[in-house]
């Protein structure tokens, strides 16, 4: 990978587009500029992304605690992933979380993106758009601190409200189902605004005369939504779901701050296990193996997007 970032071999090349009238000194300066300007980005990405990828792959085949010498263990780290109950639970948790959170996120975002298009004063539309987008700029860790208080089983506002309307109080962060629900709600609360923005952009690009033509044919409301909006929005829906899936697969801040993965392992996610394996149990090889599996899943999702977009998505 280091060959990629070595600027010298190609540095002698003159820029092809430079007109012949350009003086030699300028041509040399152009070459200088090219590699000087690329160097920080290429060297930086090489050192802090490419080298770590290779390092991660290598580490996954070793058992290493930083202190003693690394020990080659072949595929043992990967084999352990399948047998280790914590790792297995964390991946199942992550998959379950992704399915529910992403579905909820897309549904809420689409619903609100369609609603925000309806007739209302411009300032009101701006207010709604800003409100839905606002949580995105907050820190997930701080948001989780706030939500931990709101969902506190003893004195949290949520249970107070439930009690006030004569509903049973819920052990939000103390029961498995409660903790999972809170992590999902907090995550979706903070992230639906992103999908919402994508859908607002996608809806705006649907030509209005399509609706007008279908109105003349007698199509209304729900029928138009199914026959026009959804198919024409499908490229946006696909991109939005892939981005949402990739981001949800990497969830860490919310469960770490809200529950530390508990109760038991109920909200332990894949990235939490990477963190705990590496930085609490000093199992760097195992952490790398989990990271590689997670990356392969993410690449798989991206590849699936490309396949699906060829088969199912309508482009106008």
């Amino acid at each position, binding site marked *: 990978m280091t060959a990629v970032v070595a600027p010298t071999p190609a540095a002698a090349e003159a820029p092809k587009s430079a007109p012949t009238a350009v003086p030699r000194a300028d041509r040399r300066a*152009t070459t200088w500029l090219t590699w000087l300007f690329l160097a*920080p*980005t290429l*060297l930086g990405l090489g050192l*802090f992304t490419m080298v770590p990828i290779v390092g991660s792959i290598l580490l996954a085949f070793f058992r290493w605690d930083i202190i003693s010498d690394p020990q080659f263990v072949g595929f043992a780290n990967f084999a352990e992933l399948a047998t280790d109950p914590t790792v297995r639970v964390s991946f199942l948790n992550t998959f379950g979380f992704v399915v529910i959170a992403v579905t909820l996120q897309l549904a809420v975002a689409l619903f609100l993106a369609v609603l925000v298009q309806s007739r209302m004063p411009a300032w009101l539309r701006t207010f709604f758009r800003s409100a839905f987008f606002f949580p995105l700029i907050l820190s997930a860790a701080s948001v989780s601190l706030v939500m931990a208080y709101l969902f506190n089983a003893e004195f949290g506002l949520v249970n107070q409200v439930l009690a006030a309307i004569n509903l049973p109080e819920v052990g939000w962060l103390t029961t498995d189902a409660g903790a999972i629900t809170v992590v999902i709600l907090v995550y979706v609360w903070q992230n639906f605004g992103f999908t919402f923005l994508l859908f607002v952009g996608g809806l705006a690009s649907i030509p209005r005369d399509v609706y007008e033509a279908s109105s003349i044919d007698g199509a209304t409301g729900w029928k138009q939504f199914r026959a026009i909006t959804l198919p024409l929005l499908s490229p946006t829906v696909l991109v939005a779901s892939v981005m949402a899936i990739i981001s949800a697969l990497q969830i860490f801040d919310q469960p*770490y701050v809200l529950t530390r993965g508990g109760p038991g392992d109920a909200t332990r996610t894949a990235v939490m296990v*990477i963190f705990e394996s590496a930085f609490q149990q000093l199992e760097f090889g195992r952490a790398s193996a989990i990271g590689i599996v997670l990356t392969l899943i993410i690449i798989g999702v991206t590849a699936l997007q490309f396949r699906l977009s060829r088969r199912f998505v309508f482009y106008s």
Partner: protein
Amino acid sequence: MATTLSGPLPGVHTPPTRTRRERGALGSAAKVAVMVVAAFLTLGPVVWTLFTALTPLEAGTGERSFGLGAFADVFVQVDMWLLVWNSALVTGLCAAGQMITAAMAGYVFAKMEFRGKGLLFGLVLATMMVPMQVTIVPVFLLIRGMGLADTLLALIIPAIPTAFGTFLMRQYFLGLPHELGEAAALDGAGPFRTFFSIFAPLAAPGLAIVGILAFNYHWNEFFRPLIMLISEQNFTVPLGLVTLQGNLGTGSVATVLAGVVLSMIPALVVFILGNKPLREGLTAGSNK
């Protein structure tokens, strides 16, 4: 800059006329009502945070009273100024570094011809696919090897090269006419002057997007500081607040929430001043 908040999004000028006859005013009112509920649920926790921070429990009486006591208490419980300074340093240097390196690399990928350009740009884009959580272990080991463990540089240096920023700036420079450079060359400007005095100033809006996104990300980030930093004197704001909550338990809700409110102020300023570039930047990756 208040206009950035009040202007409609491009293309969403007026709703389709289709619903006018069928639904009428009643349907619109119902829709607005649903959205008011959604906005209440979205902003409610933020308003509650502010309200609770401003009404701390009195030590003796157990009564809530309005005041800034909780805000004063944050500075007693934790070195808030130091947390803010650390976060500002990391955020500022990451943003500045990303803007500079992305402008330079994006310019070269947009305007220069050289052997291997397509391959190198492809590699830059490929690094975007790799989640940070996967490279964090080797990055931690690298940082430790460089003797930077438990320093703010551990957060800054690896974050400066930016594939996404480079991509964004390349798109931006591609949109600027090539003739600008040729005209400058005819006037005798060398390649460096052409970049610094012609192209770089014109790319300011693109740079603003890169800077604002970097600010938003690094001001709020938690995962990397949690891993890279050990000593409390190096903590950034989110890490400091989570630690504070851990130390105080559930006793001083208002104090922790006062800290959360303080941490939101810079993000809020950016949200108001940079609403449009923030929106454009966040969704930029989905358009191409």
